Each structure stands twice: as C-alpha cells, then as structure tokens.
C-alpha cells in the first residue's frame, strides 16, 4: 500500500475523531456520554500499543508472562469499589485534576512534592509516549512497505506529522475549559470509541489467524508443540520466574491507580461514582477478551514467520504475508487508535500537571496575579497548549534518539516501575495519618535513585563504556552492588530486581521519615481529611486550622482574576449562605481561605492556589503548641458543651419542679381562699344568730320563758364562736409549726381514760356507750394536752354521728414495737366513701359545697391530723369498715 494511501487513511481517521469529540462536547449532558460503559471503556486506555502489539511479542518469546501485566488490574478492580470511591470523593471535593495534585494536597498542598510527582511522571511517561510513536512509525513502515523502520529526518517522517496532529487534537479538546477539574467529554468519548475499535480489530485478527490461517486453536497448538522452545513457552519457569510474576502483578496493580492517564480517566473524568460498580466487572472482562488470542497469534507467528522479524508485529505481518492488505490496514488502524488514545490522555494529564504543578507555581504566578480574568484564562490555556506540544515533541525526539533498541515490553515495564515509586505516598497516604511531605519526597527520591541505578546505569554505562566493571563486578567492586542483581539476588529479572529494592527502600524511607518527622499543621489537617474521609464534611472547611489575617475584599479580587466576576460572586454567595456569613463581613476566616483555595485549584492547581492565597493573607504559621492548644480548646468546648447540656437538663428538671411547686402553690392559694371563705361563713352563723336573738329580745312583750330561751341561745352561740376562733388559731399555729410540744412520758391508757371522762356526761345524756378495755403501762412520749385534744375530738365526732340510745363507741389501744396505736370505732352513720380521702382537710365539706355538717367547727379532724403529724405519727380512716366509722392514729413511742 502506498505511503500516501496510508497517510490519507490516518488523516481521515483523525478527522473522524475531531467530529466525534465535537459531537460529544455538544452533548455533554446526554446519557450517551455519561454512562458506566463509556467510563469503563475509557479505562481501557490502559491497553496501549504494548498490549496491542507487545503482548504478542512477549508471548512468542517468553510464553505466558505477558499476562501478569493484566492480572494486577484484575486483582485491583474489586478494591476500587472502596479505594477508588474514596479517591474520587476526595478529588471531587478538592477539585483535584491530576495525580500530582492528589499527592501534593494529601501532604499539606506541598508545592515541591507536586513538582516532584510531576517530574516523576514525565520521566516515566515520555519514554512511554515515544514508544507509542515508535509503534506507529514502525507499523506505518510495514504497511506502506517502505522496508525500513528508520527515517532520516523528522520533516520527511510521517510519524512527526502524526504526532503534531495528535497534539493539535489534545490542545484543542483538552483546554476548552480553564478549570482542569471540569470534564472533557469530547476526549473521553473518543477514547471510549477507540477502546471499542482496538478490541474489535484485535479480536478480528485473532479470529482470522486462528480460524482462517489455521484450523482452530488445537491446530496451532499441535504445530507449535513440535518446535524446540515450546516447553519454555508454556511453563512458569523456576522460583525466579515466580517472583517475576509476582512483582509484575504488583507493578501493574500500582499502575492502574497511579498512571497519570489512568488517574485522569478513572478519577478526574468520573462523573458518577456508581459507574465504578459496572467497571469492576466489565473492565476485567475487557482485558480478558483482549488477551484471548494473544497466544494463538504469537504461536502462529512463530510457526509461519521468519524468526528475524520483530515479534511484536506478528498480528500485522501475518495478514501481510497472505497479502490481505485490507485486514492489515485494519490492524494498523487498530494499533494507531490504541496509540492515539494513550497519547491523548497521557499528554492531557501530563500537561495539566506540568502547568499546574511546575510552570504556574514556579514561574507565572506573578504575571497571573496582575492579569485580568480573560487574559489569565488565555494565558493558562496557552501554557497548557504549549506543554502539550512540547511533551509530544520531546517524546518524538526521545523516540528518534533512544528507543530504537528497546522493546515495547521493556519500556512499558520501566515506565510502570517509575510510576510505582508514587505508590507508598499514595496508598499509605490514604490510610495512614502519620505520612508527611518530607517522607513522601524522600521515599520517592530514594526509589527513583534505585531505579536509575539498577535499570538505567547499565544501559548508560553500556553506551558510554562498554566494558565497564560496574555491571559485572558491582559498584566499587562489591558483588552485592551489581545493578541487576542487587544483594546477590541473581534469579530476578532486572525489572523485578529494581522493583523489589526500589519499593523496599522507598517504603522504608517513607515510614521511617514519617515516624521521625512531624508534619506541619497543614499536612496533618489534610492527612486527616484524606484518611478519615467519612468525616470529611466536618473537616474540609470547618476543621481547617488556620491562623492569620485576610480580608474578604482581597480574596475576592484574587478570585475575580481567575474565575471572572460573575462566577466569583456566585461562589461567594453560595459560600456565605452555606455558613450563614454576613455579606458585609470584612475579615476572612479559615473556611473562606480553604474554600477559595479549592476554587482556584481547579484553574491553576493546588500549589499555585496556595501560593496565591498566601499572598493576600498574612498567615502566621501555627506552632505545635498552638495546634495542641486549639485541639485542647475544642476539647474544652466539647467538655463545656457537655457541662452546658447537663446544666440545661438540670434547669429543665428545675423548671419542671418549679412548675409543680407553682401548681402546688396555686392549689394552696385556692385552698386558702376557700379556707377564708369557709371561716367567714362559719363565723357568720353564730354572729347572725346572736344578732337576730338580741334584736328580738328588744321586744318588751316577750314572755319570760321565751326570753330565757333566747338568752340561752345567745350564750350557746357565743361559746360556739369562741370554740371556732380558738380552733382556727390552733390550726394556724399547728400549720406554721409554731407550737412547742410539751413532751413527756405518759401512759396512753391514762390519757384515754381522761378523754372518756371529758365526754362521759354528754354520752350518757345521749345514751351512747363508750367502751375501753384498759391496758396498763403503754408508755409513749407525747404532749398529753394535745393528744387529749385529738381523742376528745374523735370521741365528739363519734358521739355526733351515732344514734341516741343505740350508739356504741369502742376504743382500742394497740402497742407495737416502736409505736402506739389508738382506734376509735363507732356504729354511727360512717363516713361516705367519696369523703374518706378528704375528711382531714380544713373545713372539709362533702362535695356539695352547700351542705353543712351537722355541727361543729369543721376543723376538728384537721386539727387532729396536725397534732398527730407534729408527733411524727399518722392518722387514717379504715376504708373497709362499713358499719360505722373507724379512725386510727399512731404515734411513735420515742420522739
């Protein structure tokens, strides 16, 4: 096929990508671009030319070891549902736009660390990109039948133009928005489509090889088994090979998280964390399908093709050998597509990192601060576009200069190896609070140094001085320091050897430094946010410990420069509303600083955002003591809160009590009113009687016997009045506990006898009998006059309520261990059921207030109760006795 024909196909294909990207950008919110399938397919950017061509090469020479690179991701995927979800959430909240941002923010938004991660990524990925270019160039040569892989100068090298076209594509669709944390749907859509294409094309060539060139897999197996190195291709090999497998799996496990392009599609472009659920099974399935025919194609190539050709390109050479040009072009386009998606996403991710973590924070920050929003947006975009072009051009020159001798597989592995140096700071940073920025930097540098020593030193020394001792005899002549067989581990492949030692020392340094250095407050703050992301909501703005002075106006001016006035105002409005901050607030607090930092991070990266905010705020570093103090304060506040809570509970209980007391008082007040009413009424009756009688007595015609009667009545009513007044005073005295009891030891029998004696006359007049079975020596300590008053009262009541002649009153005296009880029992009309609870109340009258008691003051029982209670005794009505009234009172023997 002619050079121009292939070129035309490439141009047509690239134009198609532009159109698709355009359509996808137009339909940003459509479900065609926002679904778990697109997400999963975009993850398949993992499969590069290394997969498309390189796997076959490895399978043809070293058997199934190519699979290890896919087992890592397969093993990692189930973990995504937990780990990746966490990473995605953190990234969304911090507007993180690259792995460099992620790691540097975790360690307190450390500018230096961000730059180091970026450099590490450049170091790892640029050779990888050049490898992709190499694959395009080589396959281009194969398909256009030029016969030679090498081109003479880059202006007549088609690869150079292809690279430029890719750069234009990325520069255009990758920088539509200044905010790098915004999604680039156009690019993601093309990557997803490319993932479908490369899989379909690869499966197609597999089917072609297995079922067209051969008679199924069995046929290939039988033919291949006749070849001499077949055993080696189908077994694992020894212990060393086992370790090689293990380490390669580990490498790819890390790579699926850490490769900039993977981080970009998996985290930055993720628009719904639920997509992960589909991805964790669909992506491994994709990888499985991709590897379905690798061995068959490899063996078929071994059987059919000359051993001298590049094994990597069996899938292209097999159809070419059969002159199936259409199929060959298809395979070429499949490979090309693979390369494009990898380069596009990689350069996009890298350019973001370069601009946000190196160029802006280290060079352009001043210019940007002085510029206006439109200029700034333009400048930032230009920085990114230039980075994209530079990256691809550097990769191209790297390919021209170095990558000729290296296979896809080995460059891929080295790239993974370098990226893996981010693993300790990434994974431990997510799970361990203690990790610090210095530890992360040190670990990374140590790891990189070891990778350089074990992998690159041999290559470089090979080029510089082919017979140098280092390789065969080790550094300074020590065999233990042989780069490829460090510490005498001779059975590992160079890559596994490098992985083992770099990771070991990287992790060790990280842990050791973390344990020995304390991060500043910023680092610890972010560490808490990353590790304890469940608690994130509380921590992200409110939990930020920041001390210093800043003004809202300054921050607003700063935001204006990058976001424009409209966006700034909207964002600040939302912020104020969220935290209920007044619009007129002049001083900025930690929350606003943190919020603004996040807003700016999207545009210029976290490092620059931090620098910018530091420029408008006078931040005073917080010493450890102060941090502790702040923590202590919050602890104190918590304790105070607890105390307050307790106090408030107490107050509530007290209020409840007060309410009860109040209610009680109200009742008391009402009772008092009623009492006074009743007293007035009770006093009025004898007064009325006296007054009426004395008026009648004015009549001089009155017969003398009638006159005597009226005079007697007056006398009786006066007595009644007197008794009433005495009782009232008595009761009041007893209520106020103002009476001094004259306590002495008395025999209760004697007291009862005295009481009976007092009422005997009235009783015999009425014909009521009083019985008391005398019991001697029942001593108790009491005020005899008072107890006598009680007894007389009870006896009077009984006399009042019993029928004349048939009435019977019985007094019982009971002696208990500590108290003496007296029971007065009669056969009178008894106490109505509903009254039993109230008869001891002052002036108690039956429910019907208008019904008068037969006689008496209505205070008798109330007085009795007071007296008994002042002796610490009790008085009660027997509720069960129906044939009369039974009242019992008890007083303790000793007071």
């Amino acid at each position: 096929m002619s050079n121009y024909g292939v070129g035309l196909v490439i141009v047509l294909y690239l134009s198609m990508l532009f159109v698709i990207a355009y359509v996808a950008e137009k339909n940003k919110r459509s479900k065609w671009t926002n679904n778990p399938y697109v997400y999963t397919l975009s993850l398949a950017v993992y499969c590069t030319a290394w997969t498309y061509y390189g796997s076959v090469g490895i399978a043809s020479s070293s058997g199934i070891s190519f699979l290890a690179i896919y087992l890592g991701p397969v093993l990692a995927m189930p973990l995504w549902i937990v780990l990746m979800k966490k990473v995605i959430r953190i990234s969304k909240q911090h507007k993180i736009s690259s792995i460099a941002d992620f790691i540097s923010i975790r360690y307190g938004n450390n500018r230096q660390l961000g730059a180091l991660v970026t450099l590490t990524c450049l170091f790892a990925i640029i050779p990888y990109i050049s490898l992709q270019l190499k694959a395009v160039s080589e396959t281009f040569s194969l398909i256009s039948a030029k016969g030679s892989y090498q081109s003479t100068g880059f202006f007549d090298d088609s690869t150079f133009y292809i690279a430029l076209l890719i750069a234009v594509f990325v520069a255009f669709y990758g920088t539509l928005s200044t905010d790098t944390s915004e999604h680039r749907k156009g690019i993601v859509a093309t990557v997803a489509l490319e993932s479908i294409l490369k899989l379909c094309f690869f499966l197609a060539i597999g089917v072609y090889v297995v079922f067209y060139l051969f008679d199924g897999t069995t046929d290939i197996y039988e033919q291949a088994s006749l070849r001499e190195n077949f055993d080696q291709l189908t077994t694992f090999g020894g212990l060393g090979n086992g370790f090689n497998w293990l380490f390669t799996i580990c490498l790819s496990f890390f790579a699926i998280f850490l490769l900039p392009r993977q981080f970009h599609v998996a985290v930055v472009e993720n628009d719904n964390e639920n997509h992960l659920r589909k991805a964790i099974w669909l992506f491994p399935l994709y990888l499985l399908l991709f590897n379905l025919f690798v061995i068959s194609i490899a063996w078929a190539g071994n059987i059919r093709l000359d051993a001298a050709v590049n094994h990597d390109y069996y899938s292209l050479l097999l159809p070419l050998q059969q002159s199936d040009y259409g199929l060959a072009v298809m395979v070429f386009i499949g490979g090309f597509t693979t390369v494009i998606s990898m380069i596009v996403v990689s350069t996009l991710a890298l350019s973001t990192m370069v601009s946000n973590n190196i160029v802006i924070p280290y060079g352009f920050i001043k210019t940007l601060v002085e510029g206006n929003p439109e200029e700034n947006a333009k400048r930032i975009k230009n920085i990114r576009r230039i980075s994209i072009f530079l990256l691809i051009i550097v990769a191209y020159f790297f390919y021209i200069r170095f990558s000729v001798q290296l296979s896809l597989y080995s460059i891929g592995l080295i790239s993974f190896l370098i990226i893996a140096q981010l693993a300790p700071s990434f994974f431990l940073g997510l799970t361990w609070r203690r990790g610090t920025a210095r530890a992360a930097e040190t670990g990374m540098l140590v790891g990189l140094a070891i990778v350089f020593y074990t992998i690159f030193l041999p290559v470089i020394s090979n080029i510089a001085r082919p017979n140098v001792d280092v390789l065969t005899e080790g550094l300074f002549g020590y065999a233990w320091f042989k780069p490829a067989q460090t510490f005498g581990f001779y059975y590992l492949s160079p890559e596994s050897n490098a992985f083992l030692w770099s990771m070991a020392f990287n992790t060790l340094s990280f842990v050791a430094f973390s344990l020995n250095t304390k991060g500043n407050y910023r680092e610890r703050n972010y560490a808490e946010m990353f590790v304890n992301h469940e608690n994130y909501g509380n921590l992200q703005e409110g939990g930020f410990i920041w001390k210093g002075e800043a003004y809202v106006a300054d921050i607003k001016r700063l935001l204006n420069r990058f976001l424009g006035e409209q966006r700034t105002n909207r964002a600040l409005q939302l912020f104020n509303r969220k935290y209920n901050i007044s619009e007129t607030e002049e001083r900025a607090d930690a929350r606003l600083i943190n919020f603004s930092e996040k807003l700016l991070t999207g545009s210029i990266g976290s490092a620059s955002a931090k620098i910018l905010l530091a420029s408008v705020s006078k931040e005073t570093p917080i010493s450890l003591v102060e941090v502790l103090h702040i923590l202590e304060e919050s602890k104190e506040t918590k304790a105070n809160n607890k105390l307050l809570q307790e106090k408030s509970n107490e107050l509530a209980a007290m209020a409840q009590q007060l309410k009860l007391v109040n209610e009680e008082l109200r009742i008391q007040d009402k009772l008092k009113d009623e009492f006074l009413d009743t007293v007035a009424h009770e006093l009025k009756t004898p007064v009325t009687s006296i007054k009426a009688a004395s008026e009648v007595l004015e009549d001089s015609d009155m017969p003398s016997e009638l006159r005597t009667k009226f005079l007697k009545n007056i006398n009786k009513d006066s007595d009644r009045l007197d008794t009433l007044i005495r009782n009232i005073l008595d009761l009041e005295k007893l209520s106020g506990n103002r009476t001094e009891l004259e306590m002495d030891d008395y025999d209760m029998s004697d007291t009862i006898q005295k009481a009976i004696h007092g009422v005997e006359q009235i009783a015999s007049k009425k014909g009521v009998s009083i019985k008391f079975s005398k019991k001697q020596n029942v001593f108790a300590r009491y005020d005899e006059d008072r107890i006598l008053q009680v007894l007389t009262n009870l006896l009077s009541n009984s006399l009042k309520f019993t029928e004349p002649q048939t009435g019977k009153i019985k007094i019982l005296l009971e002696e208990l261990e500590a108290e003496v009880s007296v029971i007065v029992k009669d056969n009178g009309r008894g106490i109505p059921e509903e009254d039993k609870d109230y008869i001891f109340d002052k002036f108690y009258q039956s429910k019907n207030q208008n019904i008068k008691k037969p006689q008496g003051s209505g205070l008798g029982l109330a007085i009795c109760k007071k007296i008994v209670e002042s002796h610490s005794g009790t008085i009660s009505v027997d509720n069960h006795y129906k044939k009369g009234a039974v009242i019992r009172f008890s007083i303790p023997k000793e007071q």
Partner: protein
Amino acid sequence: MKQKKILIVDDEPNILMSLEYAFKKKDFEVFIARDGTEAIEISNREKPNLILLDIMMPEMDGYETLKQVKDNEDLAHTKIVFLSAKSKEKDIEKGLKMGADRYLTKPFSMKKVISEIEELLA
C-alpha cells in the same frame, strides 16, 4: 286584710327561732322548715306569699329549693327572698339570676329584713 303566709327555711334552729318570733309579731302566718325537702312540702301545702330561704343547708340546698318552687305553677305568685351568709358579689348575682326577688345577707338586721319583705308583699 287576709294574713300573709311566710315560710322561713334555715338549718340553724336559733336563727329560725328569732325570725319566727319577729314575723309572728308582725302578724304574718309563719311556717318554718329545717331543710329544702321540708320547705317544698310546706310550700305545696300552704302556698305561702313569700319564702325566706337560706342557701347552705343539708340534703337540699336553697338553689335547688328555689328551682323546684319556680317549677311549680301553683307557686307562681310566691315571692322568694334569699337570706344567706354567702355575701360575695357573684353569689348575690347568681341568686338573683336564678329568680330570687331579693337577696339579703347574714348577719342581718331584723328590722331591715322585715321592711324589705313587707315592701315586697305590699
């Protein structure tokens, strides 16, 4: 002129005694009752021109007695005067509202009670 019939109802015998003597002296035909039940019985029999009624009495109180008297059409012309120790404003209001012609309070002046009643029956 026909002798006016007056029924005096009170549970206090001493008060009752004084009133009975005073009204007899004024040439009334006096009936006395110690409680509401007795008062209704006598009213129905004698159809007095006026009932002098205490309020706070056992069994049937003054209010209830008044109600029953008012319910009896035969007693439509019988005037009712409360004579009670309940002397608060609201008690007086209540008594008059229930249909009493006068409300007199205890302790009372005998002369005043007699003059009020004579005025009422004139």
